[in-house]
């Protein structure tokens, strides 16, 4: 499919110290994005992930030129599309209008023009763009795009007659038609219901990988960010907390907040026993090797991140050969088929979540022993200082 369409030259995007502020009536200024730095490699797919109000959409819109940053610089390819003079670096203001940036965008609601047919919607950008296409070229391109999004026979339909998923695919085709250097997607699947979302997401992922366009998309859904994104920027309160591959984010989050936002997280208190190269923390559920020790070395008490699937459960018994671990009571069971999620109450009162493959099923009230599982690939963990830091509860 990709070789039918013109090759999309992947273009890098970089942002330096970008801030976006809104003037709120009576309340001065609201800082939506606070000095964000981001480097997007050509042809990659980047997710901006964060809770609502974290500034991810504002950041995306500042790349599009729909929002003018109050400071910082945005560069698309070789071209600086916006800079703001500030007191430290007196530069000239540069502002490229959105329509001159060669950027495509898919909106949350698709934003198909309701007065135009599917085909006219897709043609819209080809007519408006400065790149001139001949009539047969336009027809051929639209046909290829309709084929790409699997809507070949829908060209003459009105947008209101399409389902939500079809509308989003048309919106994608429309945004790709003028061959943008960068494609931006603003929560493109959030208006779809769950089953459809997974399906459309998979199709969009296939299309984007096929054509290799640099893509930046916004989502509040961690699954979506991980499934689609080559790299994910996790944002909170206007700042990029961490930027990395999904695996990096999941296994070695920089803060407990990130740890909790990208997946379910338990934090257990441990004592650092070995201060040599390979650190180990002694916790109630066993000895846990620490890879990312984000604590200064003076502290010996740390909180250690333990993912639910890193916990193994065995029936509690009085015998001496029972595994090292903490006795706990099963307080809740959620059966998913491929695995089972348990909520445990340790005897010291703390609660833990565990996910296990269902070799042995427990029921509410069972006594079990919870043990840190060493055999898995991710048998190491991250540790954080015991401070005011707490896992995110605003997921």
């Amino acid at each position, binding site marked *: 499919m990709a070789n039918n369409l013109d090759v999309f030259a992947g273009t890098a995007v970089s942002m330096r110290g970008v801030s976006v502020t809104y003037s709120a009536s009576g309340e001065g200024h609201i800082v939506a994005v606070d000095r964000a730095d981001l480097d997007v490699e050509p042809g990659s797919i980047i997710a901006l992930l964060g809770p609502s109000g974290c500034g991810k959409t504002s950041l995306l819109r500042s790349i599009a030129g729909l929002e003018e940053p109050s400071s910082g610089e945005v560069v698309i390819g070789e071209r600086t599309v916006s800079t703001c003079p500030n007191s430290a670096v007196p530069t000239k203001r540069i502002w490229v*209008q*959105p*329509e001159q940036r060669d950027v495509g965008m898919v909106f949350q609601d698709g934003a198909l023009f309701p007065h135009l047919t599917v085909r006219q919607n897709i043609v819209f950008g080809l007519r408006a763009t400065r790149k001139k296409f001949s009539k047969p070229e336009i027809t051929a391109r639209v046909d290829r795009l309709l084929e790409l999004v699997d809507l070949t026979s829908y060209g003459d339909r009105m947008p209101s007659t399409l389902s939500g998923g079809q509308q989003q695919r048309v919106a994608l085709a429309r945004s790709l038609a003028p061959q943008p250097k960068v494609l931006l997607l603003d929560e493109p699947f959030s208006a779809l219901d769950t089953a459809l979302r997974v399906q459309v997401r998979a199709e969009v992922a296939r299309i984007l990988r096929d054509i290799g366009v640099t893509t930046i998309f916004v989502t509040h859904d961690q699954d979506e960010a991980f499934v689609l994104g080559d790299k994910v920027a996790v944002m909170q309160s206007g700042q990029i907390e961490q930027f990395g591959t999904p695996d990096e984010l999941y296994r070695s989050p920089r803060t407990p907040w990130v740890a909790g936002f990208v997946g379910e997280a338990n934090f257990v208190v441990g004592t650092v026993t070995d201060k040599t190269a390979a650190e180990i923390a002694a916790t109630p559920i066993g000895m846990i090797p620490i890879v990312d020790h984000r604590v200064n070395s003076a502290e010996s008490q740390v909180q250690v991140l333990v993912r639910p699937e890193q916990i193994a459960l065995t029936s509690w018994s009085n015998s001496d050969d029972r595994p090292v671990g903490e006795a706990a009571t099963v307080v809740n069971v959620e059966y998913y088929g491929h695995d089972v999620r348990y909520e445990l109450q340790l005897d010291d009162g703390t609660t833990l979540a565990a996910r296990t493959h269902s070799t042995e099923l427990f029921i509410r009230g069972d006594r079990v022993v919870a043990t840190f599982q060493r055999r898995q690939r991710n048998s190491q963990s991250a540790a954080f200082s015991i401070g005011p830091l707490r896992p995110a509860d605003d997921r």
Partner: protein
Amino acid sequence: MTDASLAPSRPQSGSRQRTATSWVTPSRLIGLTIGALFAGPAAFVVWRTVRLGDDLGDVLSEVPAPLWRTIQLSVLVSASTAIVGTGLAWLTTRTNLPGRRLWRIALVLPLALPSFVGAAAFIAGLAPGGVLNDALTAVGITPPSRLRGLGASWLILSAFTYPYVYLPVAARLLRLRSSLDESGRMLGLSSTATFFKVTLPQLRTAIFGGALLVFLYTLSEFGAVQLLGYDTLTRVIFSSRLTNRALSFAAASVVLLLALCVVALERSQRGVSRPDDRTSVLTRQPTRLRWGTIPALAACTLVLSVGLLVPVASLATWAQRGLTDGRIGFGELVQPAMNTALVAITAAVAATVIVLPIALATTRRPHRSSNIAAISVVVGFAIPGLVLALALAVLTLNTPGLDRLYQTTALLILAYVIHFGSQALASSESAARSVPNSLRESSRLLEPNPARRFFSVDFPLMRPGLVAGAGLVLLSTVKELPATLLLSPPDFSTLSTEIWSAYEEGFYAAAGLASLVLIGVSSVLTWVLVLRGSDVVRK
């Protein structure tokens, strides 16, 4: 299986089959009777005209000239209000115009002025001693001696009717997803091109619908064109109603047919593009006017001045002068104000009660008969007030037994009900729709008595909608002139007839004071009924 299962199922009360059965049920007959009441005057006008036979040919030759003037004026006013209304709506919703929220509300206010009051205010303002005359003389311009003709009518009707376009367009713009505009930009259009290629097509239905209402309004307009000496069809009807009844009926038929076409066109337009009612946040970054700020502010100020400030100032100076002289006082207005309140409130309640059966029928048991009744109600709206009054006057005078109705408040109220019933109908229909089916079905299981069910479940839920509908009738009635002029009993004056006669006799002070009272009442009603709940104010 018993035989019963083979027999055709009997229509059960409330079941769905009921829609397909006979026309002769009590509720349908009631609906058709009400419909006949609304469509009757229009039918009478056409029948009288057709019956003229050979005379028709003679009088019709006198119609084309005023018809042409009517059409000219209506087209000009519709076109200019479409442009002005759309422009103002865009300025107050999509740009960084200073004080745009305040403008957004203020620009609706000219709606509170009946256009004949506006015309009178301008004429009085330009007369020696008027506020405009003084102002123009002060800056060294000789004031025009008379305000007459097409140009003056065009200006004045536009100044008071543009809100019919402005309101729906502003409401549409406020609901329009900003992502549509932004998509236009992302696909390579400049902001101006985006307005014309993306935004404007979304507004088309609102603009067209509003402009058609303006067209209808201008077509039916009598007071303003009479004062401004522009010979339209309504003026012909009025002046020939006593001397040449054939001509007045022929002219009335022509206006009526035109009006019916316009209303039919407007109705059919509503269904054409399904409004896209997904809402979204306002454009985060309104269009920056930059150098355009001053001209934009000037335009808004000009429109508001012509539509509200100047006429009110003109009326106020005359009124104030009269009050200080002691020539006039509020005492003389008490009776007309009471009369206005009496007929308007009665008409509002009567209209709401009379159309309620139709509203219930069209929303709950739609049938051809209920559709016919609903269309008849709309015919009552389309028929110009003057034509309706003429029809009712001639009908009652020439029908033995009915002649006692002539020049009674009952007939006047009936005219209001027929003319403004469709406003109550629209509100009542949406009120009826607001009672969920499930609620009606569950109440049916709990309360067997239909009347008690209606008053304990349906009515309380429908009440806000019914009150709103009655309020709209009230507002229109207060502002109405031609039907009131023709049908009022002798010595029965309302605020609008008081203004009219005071003005015709040259008593500018008395006319000014009465107008201010009328504008005050209609502003309050407009605020409460039209504006308060609208997005234009709330967003």
